[in-house]
């Protein structure tokens, strides 16, 4: 089985080589023109670069969302505890400034 796969693999390689050789020989690209085979290779290279960058971007986005929700959770419990502390120590509750209210809403 393995030999058969090996043979099929080298046959495919030979086919690809012969085709490219034939195209380069029969249609030499004139100056300024792009080599047809090279364009096809660039096309598949650009597709795999795109897929690799998509995967990288997806990973970054997921990680970013996790860290943001962690930050929000800590901010919430910190602000709750500060209010508790102020009550216990009879300190007057410092009201949130307009700016703090705005960003609290934003983070919500």
């Amino acid at each position: 089985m393995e030999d058969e796969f090996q043979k099929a693999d080298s046959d495919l390689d030979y086919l690809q080589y012969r085709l490219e050789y034939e195209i380069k020989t029969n249609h030499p690209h004139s100056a300024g023109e792009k080599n047809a085979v090279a364009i096809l290779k660039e096309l598949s290279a650009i597709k795999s670069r795109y897929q690799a960058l998509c995967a990288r971007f997806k990973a970054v986005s997921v990680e970013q969302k996790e860290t943001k929700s962690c930050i929000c959770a800590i901010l919430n419990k910190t602000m709750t505890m500060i209010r508790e502390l102020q009550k216990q120590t009879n300190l007057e509750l410092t009201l949130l400034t307009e700016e703090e209210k705005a960003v609290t809403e934003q983070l919500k």
Partner: protein
Amino acid sequence: TLKDDVNALLDNARLESQESTSFIKATKVLMK
């Protein structure tokens, strides 16, 4: 279509960056 996909993703990435920048600013206001 590949070009359109990349353009769409680029816009999405830029939007996310802006959101994160304002998120960090907001968090720093509350930390103060």
